[in-house]
């Protein structure tokens, strides 16, 4: 019996956002990455167009982090001692983008300086041709002190500067505006908060095709369902034509996962949790895949094995199924 395939009709689309600029475009990147553009819910190839696949950003730190699980540091080996080497290793592991996180303290234990932050950013840009995201430590004043000189020193690279939040977006947005960069706008798991921040950023004159939104998520077991549903709601609103939700979404699946006890702790945990390394990687992969299903355009990951697995999942999700 012939069954008509039920297609939803959508009027809106997610904006296309291009990260990175090649030499011809005023930067130095070997490649650029374009995300967004979808006219349907995640991977519904039968009813709309999904011109760009979701991508994987790999998180590296400006110096060997002392608060990361040794499972991660062991996996990255000596590369984690140096951001340039780490960026290369991340590229080899299958990254589409590099996300450089700036730690509050430098390698010598002293507070990070704008000079050292700029040096680390430039080293990463030289070591890898992938487009870059730079996330400051998340303290309003310090973030501004670091991101402004970074933005100036890398003018034209179309870096994603983060993290722009309601309390702290003006300086970052202005720096992006003046130096041909993008921003990542983070709000706390709420559709309206996300819209408001996008409006505020747009009002400063930054074109919205230079904004990515990070609606925040919890990891598996720690509130993933909130992030999951907020993302579905944002994407539905975007497809229904709400312009302020039509931005690609970024989720820090790796950061959230590696905060959890399931990933961080290997001893003194219930036996039912099973093998530590396998569990930690599962935790990151399940978190990332669930959030891809709910609309993530960029997933930021930490473990090299997770990168490979999530990449394989994206390949399969993007393989357009035969009609039928």
């Amino acid at each position: 019996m012939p069954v008509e395939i039920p297609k939803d009709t959508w009027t809106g689309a997610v904006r296309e956002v291009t990260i990175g600029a090649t030499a011809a475009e005023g930067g130095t990147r070997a490649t650029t990455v374009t995300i967004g553009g979808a006219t349907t819910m995640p991977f519904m190839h039968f009813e709309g167009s999904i011109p760009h696949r979701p991508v994987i950003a790999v998180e590296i730190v400006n110096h060997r982090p002392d608060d990361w699980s040794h499972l991660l540091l062991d996996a990255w080996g000596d590369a984690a001692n140096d951001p340039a080497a780490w960026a290369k290793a991340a590229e080899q592991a299958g990254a589409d983008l590099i996300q450089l996180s700036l730690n509050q303290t430098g390698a010598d234990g002293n507070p990070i300086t704008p000079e050292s932050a700029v040096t680390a950013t430039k080293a990463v840009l030289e070591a890898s041709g992938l487009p870059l995201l730079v996330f400051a430590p998340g303290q309003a004043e310090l973030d501004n002190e670091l991101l402004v000189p970074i933005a100036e020193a890398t003018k034209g690279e179309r870096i994603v500067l983060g993290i722009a939040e309601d309390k702290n977006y003006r300086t970052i947005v202005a720096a992006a505006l003046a130096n041909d960069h993008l921003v990542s706008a983070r709000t706390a798991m709420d559709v309206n908060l996300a819209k408001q921040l996008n409006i505020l950023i747009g009002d400063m004159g930054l074109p919205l095709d230079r904004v990515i939104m990070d609606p925040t998520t919890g990891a598996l077991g720690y509130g993933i369902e909130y992030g999951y549903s907020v993302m579905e709601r944002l994407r539905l609103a975007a497809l229904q034509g709400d312009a302020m939700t039509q931005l690609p979404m970024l989720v820090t699946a790796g950061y959230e996962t590696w905060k959890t006890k399931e990933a961080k702790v290997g001893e003194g945990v219930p036996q039912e949790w099973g093998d530590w390394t396998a569990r930690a990687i599962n935790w990151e992969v399940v978190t990332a895949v669930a959030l891809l299903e709910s609309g993530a355009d960029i997933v930021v990951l930490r473990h090299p094995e997770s990168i490979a697995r999530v990449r394989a999942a994206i390949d399969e999700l993007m393989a357009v199924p035969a009609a039928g």
Partner: protein
Amino acid sequence: MALTGIQIYKLLPQTNCKDCGFPTCLAFAMKLAAKQVELSSCPHVSEEAQAQLAESAAPPIRLVTLKANGHEVKAGNETVMFRHEKTFYHKTGLFVRVRDDEGPDAIKARVAPADAYAVNYVGMDLTLDGFAVESASNDPAQFEAAIAAVRSASQRPIILISRDPAVMAAGLKALDGESPLIYGADAANWEAMAALAGQHSAPLAVIGATLDELADLTQKIQGAGVEDMVLHPVATTLGASLALNTQIRRLALKKNFRPLGYPLIAFAGNDPVGETIAATQAIAKYAGFVVLDHFAPETVYSLLVLRENIYTDPQKPIQVQPGVYEINNPKPEDPVMVTTNFSITYFSVANEIEGAGLPGWLLVTDAEGMSVLTAWAAGKFDAERIAKAVKQFSIADKVSKKRIVLPGHVAVLSGELEEELPDWEVRVGPREAVDLPAFMKQAL
């Protein structure tokens, strides 16, 4: 699809006799549409109208139950595409597959630990739901032996896998009195399988690669008298599987398309890595039953938690019991920290302290399951409530240093709390749980 009040009214006697307790038939019809009364309250409704109303009241996705020895796994009766629209109801049943050519001893050895597995998450014990037994040998006797081996180690519901009706008949005989899932019926064997499903009152899985094929089969099988079916839309990639599952759910919910109004089953695949990913998608996107080929605690734990998270009612967040929680065996001189009883808030805070290996007393107040900021905004987490919890749970008797740490988000409460608790020192902690260990090391 549910009928509107007006549509129901047209089926009623329209005499306004008031025997139902309502002044008019229309008033009763409205209540019925809102599911606030039962049709049986009207003694005068015709049989024909009854049948029509029953048909329209049937859920768009049929509820199917697998039963064995007091265990039940239900799937179906779902009402929404996205969990935020209402909630997902029947948690995806997770099954582990064994094959009869593994031999009874190996089967027993695999089933026993999977059957015994229970992991605590947010105060709940999560377990697997049952086992799938596949006839790889195509030999009825060997199939029966494998089923007996499973039954010697587990009483949970079973999915029987064979396309050969003779083998399936042997399997069903071995499980007499239970309702296993028969997997399954295809274009070649459906008549014989439907007959078996009828004889044993067991639900039947229907296998097809396209919507057309599946709808054809379910209609034929329904014609043969079988009502309880489960669909297996066969797909070779994650993307294809997602598309089929979504299309079937949409047809059932939005078009009330009966031939596909059944729960779905998914086979997560045979390599352990791909299996975790496929099962993740299946849990999030509409499978009622998922069959795994491996049992590994580190995989099953993550999938059970995902299932819990996806199927949580968005209107009713999971709460923890208010009280004093001891973390890392605190001593009287260790700090007291306060937070709300929203499970995720509690677990984030407890996890940070515990993960850092720092001892402390965590006072969890009754904030009606809201997070710190939301509860504060709603007046459910204020100085008065915190002081009340301090007294109610007699935390002062447990500690030598009367010092309490407030979440940074509610720093504004510190003055009032000092007034409420005059002999306590009130400190303001960090806003985020992740910064708590550093705060405890440096400031306490």
